[in-house]
Every structure is written in structure tokens, then in C-alpha cells.
């Protein structure tokens, strides 16, 4: 047997074991970082047909989210505004802007603008905007600080684990209904105040976020 394997092969099993451990650690950390929604989805920033600047309209001019996404409080779906919504102002302001040409064309023809969807829940997930907005979940919790975005990008992972973070501890996220569209709002009492008030909201509004499979996978 001595001539089957060279002497250096004696150390080989140990080296292989060490290598396997390193490889396993690399694979696990690689998957955790690169193959989860916090990497694969966050940062998605598609080019839109019209470079609508949220940071200008919302952040500087102070438009409320609901001016354009008008049905978010009543509907499960937060609507994208029709071109007529844009034209409410832009029939008077910047009427000859080249960037706004697609909006005017869409308004004239009735053909909607081909906005590129940024956030998409899978078909097997049931999500209702109105129930969240009416129970003190702010837009910012899921969509990030849109009032500071020039181009809208995917801000949060929107993985199932991420949904459950709030469904399991809603008191950490709920705020007064009046502040839902105020994206800069933070609880004046800090973290402690947030939890205190959050618990009150959970109690008073009877917030009971589902954690069973069928809550979202209907």
C-alpha cells in the first residue's frame, strides 16, 4: 500500500475537512447576502417614461401622497395616477416642457402612460393597501423615504420575513392615522414613546395582524 499514496497525502484528510468548512461558510454567507431579497430586490430603480421627481413634488412642494395615489385608503390597490391628475397642474405649469410631452400625448389620446412597476407582490400573496394605511402603517414603512427619491427605487426587501417582522410586533411601527402620509414623522417620545403609543394603537384599533399561512396566501 505504501506505494499507492505519496507521503504528503497523510495531511490531506485534515486539509479537505478544513477546506470543506471554509467552503461551507463561504456558500452560506454568500447565499445569505446575495441570494435574499434584501440584495436581489432592494435598489431596483427602473427608468420611467417620464422622469417624475418625487423629491421635488413631495419633498419640496409638499404634495400629499394621496393627491396622486388617491384610492389608497379605500382600495386594496394603491392606484397609479391617470395623466389627467398630472394635467391638473401641468395644463398651466410648464406647458411646453419637452419632458412632459408623453403626459400631454397620453392625456390627448387617452392611452395610459407605460409606467414601469417597481414594487410587485407575487400572485400568491394577498396584500391590501387600505387596511394597512387605515391602521396607522405609514407609506414609509414599506416604500422608504419616497419624498427624498428623485427616481423611485425599491427600498425594502419585501420578503416574507420582512412582512412578518411587523406582523409579529406591530407596536413598533404603528403611528397616528394623521401622520401616515407624513414620511418624515418620528415619534416625539423616541423609541420608548413609540412602543407605548404603538401598544395603545394595537389595543384601541384592535390590530390583529394575521400570522397564519392563509392570512396572506389565500
Amino acid at each position, binding site marked *: *500500500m505504501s506505494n*499507492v499514496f505519496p507521503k504528503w497525502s497523510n495531511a490531506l484528510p485534515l486539509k479537505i475537512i478544513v477546506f470543506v468548512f471554509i467552503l461551507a461558510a463561504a456558500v452560506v454567507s454568500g447565499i445569505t447576502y446575495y441570494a435574499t431579497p434584501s440584495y436581489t430586490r432592494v435598489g431596483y430603480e427602473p427608468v420611467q417614461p417620464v422622469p417624475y421627481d418625487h423629491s421635488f413634488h413631495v419633498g419640496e412642494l409638499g404634495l400629499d401622497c394621496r393627491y396622486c395615489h388617491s384610492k389608497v385608503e379605500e382600495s386594496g390597490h394603491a392606484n397609479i395616477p391617470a395623466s389627467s391628475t398630472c394635467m391638473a397642474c401641468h395644463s398651466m405649469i410648464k406647458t411646453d416642457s419637452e419632458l412632459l410631452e408623453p403626459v400631454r400625448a397620453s392625456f390627448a389620446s387617452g392611452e395610459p402612460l407605460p409606467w414601469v412597476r417597481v414594487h410587485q407582490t407575487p400572485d400568491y400573496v394577498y396584500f391590501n393597501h387600505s387596511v394597512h394605511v387605515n391602521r396607522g402603517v405609514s407609506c414609509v414603512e414599506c416604500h422608504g423615504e419616497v419624498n427624498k427619491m428623485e427616481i423611485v427605487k425599491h427600498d425594502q426587501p419585501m*420578503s*416574507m420575513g420582512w412582512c412578518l417582522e411587523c406582523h409579529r410586533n406591530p407596536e413598533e411601527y404603528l403611528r397616528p392615522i394623521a401622520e401616515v402620509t407624513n414620511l418624515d414623522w418620528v415619534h416625539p417620545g423616541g423609541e420608548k414613546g413609540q412602543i407605548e403609543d404603538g401598544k395603545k394603537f394595537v389595543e384601541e384599533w384592535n390590530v390583529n395582524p394575521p400570522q397564519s399561512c392563509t392570512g396572506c396566501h389565500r
Partner: protein
Amino acid sequence: MASAHASIEEVEPAILDEVNPVDIPRPALVDNDRSFSWITDKICGIVEEKTPTWWWVCFVLACGTASFTVMGLVYLVSTGTGVWGLANPANWGWAIVNFVFWIGIGHAGTLISAILCLLRQKWRTSINRAAEAMTIFAVVCAGIFPVFHVGRVWMAWFLFPIPNANAIWPNFKSALLWDVFAVSTYGTVSVLFWYVGLIPDLASVRDRATSKIRQFLYGIFAMGWRGSNRQWSNYEMCYLLLAGLSTPLVLSVHTIVSFDFAISLLPGWHTTIFPPYFVAGAIFSGFGMVLTLMLPLRAIYRLDDLITQYHIDCMTKIILATGTMVGYAYGMEFFIAAYGANDFEIFAFVNRAFGNYAWAYWIMISCNVISPQFFWFKKIRENTALVWIITIFVNIGMWFERFVIAVTTLTRDFLPSSWGYFSPTIVDIFTYVGTFGVFSVLFLLFLRFLPLMAMAEIKAVTPQADAHAHKH
């Protein structure tokens, strides 16, 4: 009492002047007084000879059969689990039946390697290697069904508690999760046991190898075995520890498999007799399969001196015993149903025997309870062909047992409006039949490349190894 006390001292100590144990002759475990070198030549020869024609024929046939499973699974994954005959009310059909069937067959391996080792049943040495191989391959076949029943098979890793972006965790209250752990532990320990047992024999094959590549490959897997005293003493301790470790598994695996049914609330499943009765059934079918495999091998490779009539006797007696236990359990289920006076329970069992699946029930009874009773007769135990045929019946019967349990209960629910009749689809049949091909492919490869008997252990139990055989 006092007087009894006093008299103790007067009684003579219970020591005889001379010890005369009754001399009960034990049959030799290796016939014809074969020498060590004959055993090595015989077993290694099987691995070293030119691949026989029959092997190629069987291998091609087995691959062809195995392709049925592959086709069935590809069709299932590309289309959906609906291609199996699973539909309300029978959402467990052949998938669970085949799973339990194969896991049960796998049972004999650990029993032979662990429990018989601890009980010093020396006759295990001739059959344990092949039985352990059978166990591993049966677990492989069994695993196919639950994994693909998941539907999105690429999500099967959800079965294990692995942290993930969905923040979900398996339900530890579910028997199906216990199954995952029971079966994967069982598979791992069986492989470990099998491999540890193989090491000295792999070294024998390595040392006899003439080509460089064989020396290299067998050399790697023999892990530098030299057969020194120190290695042997460590090895024996390791083997003993593994035997101790896997002994509980013999009982736990099928107990947990039976929990899949027993912890539910359905009449016909919800019974406390399930764990022991499943374990007995598993050992029954496992030994059936061992004989089904070993008897042809014995004839083909002329292993009559190593697998003697005594070995066959032992195994058939175990089949007889466990078959009778299973029969007792079938009877006891009826008794408990009658004694418990629960209408639903009584209905479930009467329906089993005389209802829509009566045909399956009576196949089960005749194969599992009646056919092993022939083993009471020495003449039948000595007729190899007949033994082989009966073991085939045992395997058929045990498949039908699982079918009867799973299907009769589901298709006759509490609500007559949801009653139904389960029929397998062609995909079910293809997938199941194909697993016999998968099993055969693996077993044939085992025969071709690994020593099919534990040479080192057999040598230790030969008459030749006992230098003082004729003196006490």
C-alpha cells in the same frame, strides 16, 4: 419467616461439584470447514471477476425500469402534483403507501446490524452487509415520494429548520416533521454503520488489487486500514458504539412513521397499537426483502457455504414471528373497535374487511398472516424456491397493508357526502414501479464494486477460527 431465615445457613451452597452444561450443538455458520483464504477468494472474487453477462442484462433492465421513475417525476414536476391520483377525499395515496413500504423494507438492515450485533447473534455476519446496503437503497427509494409530494421540489429544503428570508420554521408539532428527522437520522446512521463495517474488507480488496486505479480508489475508501491490533481494537469499539447508537433507531423510525397516522383523529388511524405493529411489520417486510435478494445471490454466486440452511431458518423464523405479530395486531384492531363501542371506529374496521377495498384487505391478510405460517414446517423452510416465493408474498402483503390503512380510512370519512374511491393514475404506477429499478441499479452496483459479505466478521465465526472447538 424467622425459621426460614435460620435454615438458610444450613442449606448447602448452590454450587455443584462439577459443571456439566448441556451440550447443545450449534450448527456451523460456515459449512464444509472453509478456510480464511477460501472466504477471501470467494467474496473478493465476486468484485474482481470480469463483469458477468447476467449482471449487464440485469443492469440494463434495471436502468430501463428506473427511467420510469425519472419520467414520472419529470412529468410531475413540470405539470404539478395533480398528475398523481391524489384528490379529495384521498389526499394521501400511493405516495405515502410507497414511502412507508420502502422505509419498512429498510428496517431489517439496522435490526440485523445493530440489534443482532448487540445480542451476539453470530449468524448476522453473512447477511448484514447486503442487508445494510438494502436498507440504504430502500431509504433512497422511500425519500423520493415525500420529497416530490411537496410539489415544488426545489422548496423541499423548507422541510428542515434552516433560517430563511421567509422567517418561517417547520411545525414541530407535526409528525411529518418528526418523519424528516427520523428518516434522515436513520439514513445517516445506516450509511455510517455500513461504511465502518466495509473498511477492513475494502482494505482486503485494495491489497489484492492489481491495477493502479483500483488500488487508488479502494485505498481511499479503506482509509489507510492496515489491520493492526490497535486499529482492530478501536474499530471494534467504534462498531459497538454505532450498534448501540442505532439500536433505538430500529424502533424509533417506524414508530414515528406510524405517528403520521396514529396522531391524527381519523378512525382506523387513531390507535395506540400502531407503533409496535408498524415496527413488527417493518421487520417482517425487511427480512422478507433480505431473503428475496439473498436467495438468488446465494444461487448465482454459489454462496451455500456462507449462507447456510441455518441462516435461512433463522430468517424465516423471524418472518414467521413478526408475521404472526402483525396478524395479532390486525385482530386486536377489531377487538379494540368492538370493545371501545365507538360507532365510527367499528365502521372503519368493518369497512376495511368488507367495504369498498375488501379485495385489498384480503390480499393483505392472505399474504401477511397466512403465507408466513408455512414457515412452521421444516420441509418448507428447506425448500429454497418455496421460501423465495413466500417472501415475495410477504412484500406484496406489506405494500397492501399500507395501502389498506391509508386509503380505506380516507375514502370513508365521517361525512358520507365526502366519500370517494381512490385510483392511482398511470404516473403513480410508473413512478412506483420505477423505484424497483432505482433500487436494483443501486444494488447491482453494490454487488459489482463492494464485497457483499463482511469477510472479516465471517472469518471470526467460522469453525476454523475456534481453535478449541472440540474442548471445553
